[in-house]
């Protein structure tokens, strides 16, 4: 075979697209159907007969999804803020100044790119219990910040090396402090890299189950991922409720994805992770 024809290529890609989207589609359409219709015709779209919101009503009454959503939002936004701010500051120090131990510090911070933070869970839990942070959102924010920093420093310092020295020196001659040079000159210039780092970190933080389960399982600090896991576990035989809860968990990530997908895909394909 010399070359695949365009028609064959579209057929292959279309087939895989169906495989990728089919489960999401099935969950979403069935969440709007009455129990009988879910079982009778699982692949049919909801119509006037089978349409029902009973699952969503159960979810609204039994689970505190608004609170879970709020918790996830706080944890994700706060962690991203710290990752970007602290990461950019450290990246600036490493890429801008020559000092003893610069390379060593860079290597030390890069260690965490390959080693998953989960390995240290036992001691992290012990520390959070000792400091009274267990069952607070702070425990999660600290862990996700620490986990996100290594890659953030690595990507951002690569970008900061590309910021022109002339610009920074002009700022220095104009009497700007080193802090002003960082916040007013460099940070705005590396915005695309900041966005890439944010998008890379956002999804794993939002979706994590391990740390919420171990560090913050209490009702008032549950994240959406843990909240839906527990809810679905309890309502396992109530198919309407399970399907509705799944749909509600899918919704926020899908919105985020639609908003940020170009950024995410550009970030990956620009070779930011190497």
């Amino acid at each position: 075979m010399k070359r695949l024809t365009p028609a064959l290529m579209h057929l292959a890609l279309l087939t895989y697209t169906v495989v990728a989207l089919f489960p999401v589609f099935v969950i979403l359409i069935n969440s709007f159907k009455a129990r009988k219709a879910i079982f009778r015709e699982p692949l049919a779209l909801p119509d006037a007969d089978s349409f029902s919101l009973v699952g969503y009503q159960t979810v609204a009454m039994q689970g505190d999804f608004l609170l879970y959503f709020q918790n996830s939002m706080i944890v994700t936004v706060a962690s991203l803020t710290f990752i970007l701010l602290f990461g950019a500051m450290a990246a600036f120090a490493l890429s801008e100044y020559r000092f003893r131990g610069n390379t060593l510090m860079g290597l030390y911070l890069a260690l965490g790119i390959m080693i998953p933070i989960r390995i240290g869970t036992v001691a992290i839990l012990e520390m959070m219990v000792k400091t009274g942070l267990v069952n607070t959102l702070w425990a999660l924010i600290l862990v996700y910040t620490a986990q996100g920093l290594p890659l953030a420093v690595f990507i951002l310092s690569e970008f900061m090396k590309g910021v022109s020295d002339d610009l920074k020196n002009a700022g220095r001659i104009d009497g700007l402090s080193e802090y002003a040079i960082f916040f007013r000159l460099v940070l705005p210039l590396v915005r695309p890299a900041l966005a890439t780092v944010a998008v890379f970190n956002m999804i794993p933080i939002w979706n994590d189950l391990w740390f919420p389960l171990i560090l913050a399982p209490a009702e008032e600090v549950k994240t959406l991922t843990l909240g839906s896991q527990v809810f679905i576990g309890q309502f396992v035989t109530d198919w309407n409720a399970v399907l509705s809860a799944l749909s509600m968990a899918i919704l926020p990530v899908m919105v985020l994805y639609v908003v940020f997908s170009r950024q995410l895909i550009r970030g990956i394909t620009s070779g930011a992770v190497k």
Partner: protein
Amino acid sequence: MPKPHVLIFLAPAVLVYTAVMIYPLFDTLRLALFAADGQERVYVGLANFRRLFLDPLWSDQFWNALGNNFWFFLIHMLVQNPIGVALAALLSSPRLRFAAAYRTAIFVPTILSFVIVGFAWKLILSPIWGIAPSLLDAVGLKSLFAPWLGKEAYALTTLALISVWQFVGIPMMLIYAALLSITEEILEAGEVDGITGMAAFWKIKLPLILPSIGIISILTFVGNFNAFDLIYAAQGALAGPDFSTDILGTFLYRTFFGFQLQLGDPYMGSAIASAMFGIILVGVCIYLFGIQRRLRHYQF
């Protein structure tokens, strides 16, 4: 001694990273050398590891989880990477319409949480609901259906394939990026020598994307050896049926946190975490010193 502003720029990141990541990591390795004696913590040396590797009460579970983990990884390497390469090769062909739409759609599963993915597939494969059997029926293969997640022989492979379904977007994207970076000149030089179409893929593009495949392999390795969420969401902490889907992550969770009547044991948990650390370290070293160097060498 660096200037004060340098220290101020470095301090927050270094402090958080050291306190929440590096210190607990080493503290966990240290805790693996202790055991509980009533309320006291006593130093026991390597006794925890001896129990973990040799005492049948523990070692059966450990070797089972480790073996399952290798199988889990193998399925990823054998299925995820070829599909990812194939999709990327299709997407990167010039003048393909709707490439961006396909890319966006195929990446969707990767952004979903394990909880959603685990339950969604559990429902779809469930014999009660019957989506999977009726789909197989439509293509005349109904006899092939089995409650895959409930059978010891198939459950782990099924979960590995679900995980592949979820993450195939990542190799696809990374290889897509690598394929785009191959310059026209190289391909044209090939064409002059009569290498076109599929031959160009095998003889020119594939060797050039090998470094990306190396990166994907090590990312997959690290990801698989601390995986937990999908198994927990789909099969629970007991990783049923009969521990057939137990991997190191679920084994660590059960040991450390306890389940049902068994109390949690942070010291044995630390020992398992240390073993996982060792395995990941060996994998990363093989990659860094064995594979990556050779690939770099091969490129020029």
